[in-house]
C-alpha cells in the first residue's frame, strides 16, 4: 500500500524464490484468505463467548415477571409490562435517574472542563518547575480504586471529617448526608477525581500546537487572549469533545462511588441508573424490572458509544498526535 515500489518488487521476487519450499499455491491462497479471520477466533470466543449468553438472558428476563429468590419455574411471560411500568408508573424512578444522570454529567463535565483548561494553560507556560512531576501526580486520582475513593470521601464528608473541618474554617457548614447535598457531594468527588484527566489531555493538546504559529501571531500583534481563542481553541475542540464524551460514558455506567457513598440515598436522591438496577434487583426483588432497566442502560451506552466512535474516528489523528 504505502510502500515505495522497490519494496514490493523485492517482496515479489523473494516470494517467487521461496514458492518451491512453501505449501501448494491453492492451500496458500486459502490460508491467506482465512488467516485474518482465524486470528480473530481466540479473542472473539473470549469476549462474545462469555458475553453472548448473559446478554441474551438479560433480554429475556426483561420480559418476565419473576421475583428474586424464587425458582425460574415461577417466572411468567409478561410481554412489555416491565417497560410499560418503567415508562408510565408513578413510582418508577427511570426518569428521575435519567434526570440525575444528566445533571451529574452536565455539571461535573462543565466544571472539569473549565478547571482542566485553566490548569492546563497554567502548566503550558514556558517555565514551570517540576512540570513532569505535576503531570504524573495528576494521573494518580484518576486511576485509584473507585470504591476506595468513595470510602475516603465518605470519611472526609462526615460532620466531623476533614472536609467539613476545612469548610468550617471558611464558614461553610454543609451536611452532605441530606437529600439536597448528596448529589453535589457525588459531583464534587467526581470533579476531584477526573479534572486531572482533562488537565492531562488538554495539556497534551496545547503542547501539540506548533510554537511557530503562536509566535507568528504574536509578531503580527495578536493579543494573548486572541491567540488562545482563535488559534489554540479550534485545535483543542476535538480533544474537548472526545474527552467529554468519554466522561459521559463513564458517568452513565458509574456505580461504585455512589454505592459506597450513599447507596442511592438518602431516599432516592442519588439513585442514578446503575443504582436503580441494583435496587430493583436486591430491594424490590424484581428481576424483570431490573433487566428492563439494564436493557435501557445498555442501549443508552451503545448509543453514546456509537456517536463517540463516529467522532473519535474522525479526530483520532488529533488524539494520537496529542499523546505525550
Amino acid at each position, binding site marked *: 500500500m504505502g510502500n515505495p515500489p522497490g519494496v514490493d518488487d523485492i*517482496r515479489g521476487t523473494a516470494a517467487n524464490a521461496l514458492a518451491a519450499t512453501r505449501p501448494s499455491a491453492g492451500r496458500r491462497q486459502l490460508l491467506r484468505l482465512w488467516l485474518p479471520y482465524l486470528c480473530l477466533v481466540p479473542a472473539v470466543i473470549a469476549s462474545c463467548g462469555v458475553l453472548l449468553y448473559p*446478554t441474551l438472558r438479560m433480554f429475556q428476563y426483561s420480559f418476565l415477571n419473576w421475583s428474586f429468590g424464587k425458582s425460574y419455574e415461577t417466572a411468567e411471560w409478561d410481554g412489555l409490562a416491565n417497560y410499560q411500568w418503567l415508562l408510565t408508573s408513578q413510582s418508577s424512578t427511570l426518569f428521575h435517574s435519567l434526570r440525575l444522570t444528566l445533571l451529574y454529567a452536565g455539571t461535573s463535565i462543565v466544571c472539569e472542563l473549565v478547571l482542566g483548561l485553566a490548569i492546563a494553560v497554567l502548566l503550558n507556560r514556558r517555565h514551570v518547575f517540576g512540570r513532569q512531576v505535576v503531570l504524573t501526580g495528576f494521573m494518580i486520582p484518576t486511576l485509584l480504586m473507585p470504591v476506595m475513593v468513595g470510602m475516603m470521601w465518605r470519611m472526609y464528608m462526615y460532620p*466531623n471529617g476533614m472536609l467539613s473541618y476545612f469548610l468550617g474554617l471558611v464558614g461553610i457548614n454543609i451536611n452532605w448526608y441530606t437529600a439536597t447535598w448528596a448529589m453535589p457531594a457525588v459531583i464534587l468527588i467526581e470533579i476531584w477525581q477526573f479534572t*486531572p484527566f482533562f488537565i492531562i489531555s488538554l495539556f497534551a493538546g496545547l503542547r501539540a500546537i506548533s510554537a511557530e504559529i503562536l509566535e507568528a501571531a504574536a509578531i503580527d500583534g495578536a493579543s494573548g487572549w486572541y491567540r488562545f481563542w482563535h488559534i489554540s481553541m479550534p485545535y483543542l475542540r476535538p480533544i474537548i469533545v472526545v474527552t467529554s464524551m468519554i466522561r459521559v460514558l463513564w458517568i452513565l*455506567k458509574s456505580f461504585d462511588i455512589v454505592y459506597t457513598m450513599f447507596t442511592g440515598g438518602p431516599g432516592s436522591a442519588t439513585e442514578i441508573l*446503575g443504582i436503580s*438496577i441494583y435496587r430493583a434487583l436486591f430491594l424490590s426483588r424484581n428481576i424483570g424490572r431490573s433487566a428492563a432497566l439494564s436493557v435501557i442502560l445498555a442501549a443508552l451506552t451503545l448509543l453514546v458509544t456509537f456517536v463517540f466512535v463516529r467522532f473519535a474516528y474522525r479526530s483520532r489523528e488529533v488524539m494520537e498526535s496529542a499523546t505525550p
Partner: protein
Amino acid sequence: MNEQRHQAGNRRKWRRGLDTLAGSLVVWIIFLLFLAPYLYLIVWSFKHPGDIQAYPPRFFSPFTLLNYKQVFEDVNISFYLRNSTIVATATTLLSVLLAIPAAYSFARFRFWGQDWLAYLLIAIMVAPLIALVYPFLVMANQLGLNDSHLGLILFYLPWNVPFAVWMLRTFISDVPQELEESAQADGCTRLGAFGRITVPLLLPGFFTTGIFIFIGAWNEFVIAFFLTSTKARTLPTTIDFFLTYGSFQFAPMFAAGVVGTLPIAVCALLVRRYYLAGTTAGALKG
C-alpha cells in the same frame, strides 16, 4: 547608553524569573490541593484511632502501625490481597495472550468486514457491568463458578480482551511491516517473523496494556461484589466489612484504603507515557 541597555535587560530577566516563580507556585498549590485528600489518607493511616477521629483534626500526633496491624491480623486483608493479585494477574496474562492474534490481524491485514468487527469489539467493551450482574450470577451458578477465582477471571475477559486488542493493534502498527517482510524473505515463516522481529519490539506495548488491565481488574468492584462471598473475595469488596460491622470503623479503613490504592499509584508512575492512550481506550470498558 550601554549601561542603560544592560540594566533594562537585567530588569526583564528579573521580571521573567518572578513570572516563572509565581506561575510555578500557583501550579504547585493547585496540584497539592488535588493530591491533599490522598496524602491525607496516607498520613492519617499512621495515626492512633483516637487521633484519627479527633475533631478538629490532629495534624501532629505520634506515629503508629496499629491500623495496619489490625487490618492484617483482624480483617486478614492479606487473604484478599492474595485473591486480588491472583485474579488481576491471571486476567492480565490471559487477556493479552488471547488478544495478540486478533491485534495482529487488525494491524497487518485488510479484510472484508474489518471495520464492523472493530465496532463489534467496542460494542462488547462498553457493555455496562452492572447491567449484566444477574445473568452472570445465574450463569456462575449453573457452571459452578460462583465464588471462585476462575469465575471472576472468566467474567473479566469480555471487557479486557477487546481492550487489549485495541491497545496492541496500535503498538503492532507502529512496528514497520517491512521488518517482518524482510525476515520472511530471509526464510522465516510469518509466525517466526512475528515472534523474532515484532514481539521483542512490542515488549513496552505488552507491558503498558498489561498494567492497564491489571489496574482495571484490581479496582473492579461490581462483579467481584456480587459473585464472590468468602473464598474468592477480592480487595475492593472488603469495603463492606467496614461499612456493616456494627458501627462504621474509621481507623482500619484508612489503612485498608492505603493498602488497596498504593499499588495502583505506583502503576501510574510506570505507565505515564501511555496514560492518555490507555485511559481513552479504557474509558470505554464497562
